[in-house]
C-alpha cells in the first residue's frame, strides 16, 4: 500500500507504536461500562459571547493563540463565576471589533448573568491572552490579572461587585505579548509575587500586516513563526507589600536566557521541599523548571532533572501545563501539552524533583499524538480517587481543512483520558457524552464545580465561537471539596498543600496559581472519594509551614477551613 507522503507514514508508524504501548489500557476499556457523561450547557447557562480570534485565515500566530478562562468566586457568594478573555476580530489589516472579556456571575440556579459592564472588567479594548486569579493585595477579595498583547490589566476587586485596573500603579503592565502568569509567594515573605511569561516580540503593525508566508508541508502557506520571530522575555515581579511590584527577574535567577516562546505557567512544590517552584511550558524550546532555592532565588534545573525534554531528549512545542499526582505516590507529576504530530508529555515524578517522560507507558502519548493541544486539567472527574486528564485541542492553521489528504482538521475534539489507577490512562472521549463529541478549535480550559453538585465541570474557550461549558453528569463516587481561607493580612492561600486519607488511599492537592493554558482552575480543592463515606484525616500544610489537621470528616460536603491564628 502506498502511503500519501512520508510524513503520514511516520505518523502512522508512531500511532501503531503508541497504540501498542497503550494496548493493555484498551483491554481494560473493553470491559468497562461508560460512566462519563458531559453535556455542553454554555448557551442555556448564558455564556454566549463569541471569543474573537483575529482573521479567518489566522495570518499571524497571535490570531490563533486563543485566550484563557477562569473560575473564581468574585462576590464570595459560594458560587463559581466565570471569566473569559477575548481578543479582536479582524479582516486583513482592519480591526472589525475589539472583543470584550466577559465576567459572568453565577446566579446559583445553573445560569449566569453577564456583569462585565457593571464590574468594569471588559478588557479596555486590549487584545487579551490569559487570566490569573489571586487576592494579590490580601484584602480578602479575589483579583483578576489579564495578560494581553499590549499592556496587562490588574483588576483589583473592590468587594462591591466592581473592579479597578491598577496594573500601571502596580508596575506590571509589560506592554508586550504576555501569556501565562502565576501569583505565588516566591520568597516566603507572606505576600504574592508574580511571574508573567512572554511569547514573541511583535508590534501591532506587524500583526496587522501579517500574511501567511510559511510553507507548510509543501501544500499551503500558513502563519509565520515561531521560528523566525524573536522570543519575548519572561518577567518576574516581587510584591513590595504596599500594592506595587518591582521587577526582579535577573536577580531571582529567572532570566529567560534562551528567550523561550513561553506559554503555560504553573507554580507547585515540585521537589516537595516546602517552597513553590515554577514550571514554564515553552513552545519549541526546552521547558523551564525553576527550582526555588529559598530567599526568592531560583535555579533552572529542567535540563538535568528530566523535566525539560521528551523521552528522546528533544524539545517539544509546549503550550499548557497541568500538575497533579497521577499515580498516587504523593509526588506531583507534570503534563505538558504540545503541537500536533507530537504527543502531550507526562513527566512522572521520581521524587525529590526528578522526572521521567512516561507518556507512552501511561497511555497519554497515543491519543494525544495527532492533536494540537493547549489547555490541560488533571482532575478527578468521576470521583473515583484518581486524577483524570482533560486536554483542549485545535489546530492553529485553518488551511489544514483544505488538504484532507493530510488527515488533519482545524477543529478537533477535546480529549478525556480516564485514569484507571496507578497513573495509567485510557481514552474515553468517545464515550464521554455529547459534550466531548463537539469539534472546536479550543484553547483555554478550567475545571470547577460551578453547580456545586460535587463533581467538576469543564470550561473551554474556543476560537471565533462562544465558550463551551461541559456540565458533568457522570456517574460518580462521593467527594469532598475544601474551601481554604487565611484571614486577610496573614499570608496567601496559594501554595497550600493538602493530603486527605480516605479508604486507605492518600490523595494530595495544592492550591495553585496558573496552570492549563493561560487559565485558572477552581481554587477549591476537590477530592473524589469513591465509596468512602467518612474521610479519616485531612492534613493541611499552609504556605508558612503551619499545619492543620481534621479527622473523621463526613464526605459529600464543601468544607471551609480557616487557618488558625
Amino acid at each position, binding site marked *: 500500500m502506498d502511503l500519501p507522503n512520508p510524513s503520514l507514514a511516520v505518523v502512522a508508524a508512531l500511532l501503531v507504536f503508541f497504540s501498542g504501548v497503550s494496548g493493555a489500557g484498551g483491554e481494560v476499556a473493553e470491559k468497562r461500562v461508560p460512566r462519563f457523561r458531559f453535556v455542553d450547557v454554555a448557551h442555556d447557562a448564558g455564556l454566549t459571547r463569541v471569543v474573537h480570534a483575529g482573521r479567518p485565515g489566522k495570518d499571524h500566530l497571535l490570531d490563533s493563540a486563543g485566550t484563557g478562562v477562569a473560575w473564581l468566586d468574585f462576590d464570595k457568594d459560594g458560587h463559581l463565576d466565570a471569566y473569559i478573555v477575548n481578543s479582536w476580530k479582524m479582516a486583513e489589516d482592519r480591526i472589525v471589533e475589539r472583543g470584550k472579556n466577559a465576567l459572568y456571575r453565577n446566579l446559583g440556579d445553573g445560569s449566569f448573568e453577564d456583569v462585565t459592564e457593571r464590574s468594569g472588567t471588559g478588557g479596555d479594548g486590549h487584545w487579551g491572552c490569559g487570566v490569573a486569579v489571586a487576592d494579590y493585595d490580601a484584602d480578602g477579595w479575589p483579583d483578576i490579572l489579564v495578560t494581553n498583547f499590549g499592556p496587562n490589566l490588574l483588576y483589583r476587586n473592590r468587594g462591591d461587585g466592581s473592579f479597578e485596573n491598577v496594573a500601571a500603579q502596580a508596575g506590571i503592565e509589560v506592554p508586550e505579548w504576555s501569556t501565562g502568569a502565576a501569583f505565588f509567594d516566591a520568597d516566603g515573605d507572606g505576600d504574592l509575587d508574580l511571574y508573567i511569561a512572554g511569547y514573541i516580540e511583535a508590534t501591532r503593525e506587524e500583526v496587522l500586516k501579517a500574511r501567511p508566508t510559511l510553507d507548510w508541508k509543501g501544500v499551503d502557506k500558513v502563519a509565520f513563526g515561531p521560528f523566525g520571530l524573536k522570543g519575548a522575555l519572561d518577567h518576574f515581579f516581587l510584591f513590595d507589600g504596599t500594592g506595587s511590584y518591582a521587577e526582579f527577574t535577573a536577580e531571582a535567577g529567572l532570566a529567560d536566557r534562551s528567550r523561550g516562546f513561553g506559554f503555560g505557567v504553573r507554580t507547585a512544590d515540585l521537589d516537595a521541599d516546602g517552597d513553590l517552584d515554577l514550571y514554564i511550558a515553552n513552545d519549541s524550546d526546552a521547558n523551564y523548571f525553576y527550582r526555588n532555592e529559598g530567599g526568592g532565588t531560583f535555579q533552572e*534545573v529542567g535540563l538535568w532533572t528530566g523535566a525539560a525534554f521528551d523521552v528522546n531528549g528533544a524539545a517539544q512545542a509546549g503550550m499548557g501545563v497541568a500538575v497533579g499526582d497521577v499515580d498516587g505516590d504523593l509526588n506531583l507529576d507534570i503534563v505538558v501539552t504540545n503541537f500536533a504530530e507530537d504527543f502531550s508529555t507526562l513527566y512522572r515524578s521520581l521524587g525529590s524533583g526528578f522526572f521521567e517522560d512516561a507518556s507512552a507507558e501511561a497511555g497519554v502519548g497515543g491519543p494525544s499524538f495527532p492533536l494540537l493541544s493547549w489547555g490541560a486539567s488533571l482532575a478527578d472527574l468521576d470521583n473515583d480517587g484518581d486524577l483524570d486528564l482533560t486536554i483542549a485541542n485545535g489546530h492553529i492553521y485553518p488551511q489544514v481543512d483544505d488538504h484532507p489528504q493530510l488527515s488533519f482538521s482545524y477543529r478537533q475534539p477535546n480529549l478525556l483520558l480516564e485514569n484507571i489507577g496507578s497513573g495509567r490512562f485510557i481514552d474515553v472521549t468517545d464515550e464521554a457524552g455529547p459534550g466531548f463529541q463537539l469539534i472546536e478549535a479550543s484553547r483555554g480550559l478550567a475545571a470547577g464545580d460551578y453547580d456545586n453538585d460535587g463533581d467538576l465541570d469543564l470550561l473551554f474557550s474556543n476560537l471565533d465561537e462562544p465558550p463551551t461549558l461541559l456540565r458533568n453528569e457522570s456517574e460518580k463516587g462521593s467527594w469532598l471539596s475544601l474551601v481554604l481561607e487565611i484571614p486577610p493580612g496573614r499570608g496567601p492561600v496559594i501554595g497550600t498543600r493538602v493530603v486527605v486519607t480516605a479508604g486507605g488511599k492518600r490523595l494530595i492537592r495544592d492550591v495553585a496559581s496558573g496552570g492549563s493554558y493561560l487559565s485558572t482552575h477552581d481554587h477549591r480543592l476537590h477530592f473524589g472519594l469513591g465509596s468512602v463515606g467518612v474521610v479519616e484525616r485531612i492534613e493541611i500544610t499552609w504556605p508558612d509551614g503551619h499545619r492543620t489537621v481534621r479527622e473523621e470528616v463526613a464526605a459529600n460536603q464543601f468544607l471551609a477551613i480557616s487557618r488558625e491564628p
Partner: protein
Amino acid sequence: MKNRIWSGMILVGLMGLHAADAPLCQAQGQMSTPEELVASYNSLADVILGAKKTERHLVLSILAVTYSQAEAALDRAKRNIQAGKDARSDIEGLAALVAQLGNEGDAAVAGIRKRLLEGGHHHNAAGEQQGIYEEGFVVVTRAAKKGFLARAAEIGKLAAAPDAGALSTQWKKVQAQYEKLAGVEAR
C-alpha cells in the same frame, strides 16, 4: 535582518572586485555565466564554508570549555565528599554541565541557535533530515544528547546521597561519550 545586510555587503564587495572586467566578458559572448561572477560566487562560497567551519570550531570550543568545567566540578565534588563536606552544589553543578554538553551549551547558546534557525541556517541539514541531529545542532547527535542527559540526571540524583564511587562511574560514561564525539571530530 543584520545577517542579510552583512551577506549583501559581502556580495556587493566581491562583485565590486571584478566589476572592471565586465565589458570584456560580455564581449566574449553570452553563452556562459560570466567568469567574474563565477569567481565572486566562488569567493563567497569560501566565506560561507569558512563560516561553517568556524561555527563548528566554536561549538567544539564551547563543548571543550564545558567539559573542563565539568572536570573541575567533579574534582571539587570528590574532594568535598572525601572531606565529609557538603558536595550537593558541586554535584548539581556537574549535572548541569553534563546536560549542557548534551545541549551544546546552556540556554543562552540555545537562544543563539534559535536565531540562526530564524535565518534558515541548518548546520547539519542532511543530518537533521535523517534524524541524526536536532535542528541547529552542530556536533552533538540526538543519540549523544540523550546519553548526556541521562548521565546528567543520574549525577544529579547523587546530590542527595553523595558517593564518590558512583560519581566516578557516571563520569566515566560521560567521558566515553565525549571522547566518542571528539574521536569523530578528529577523523
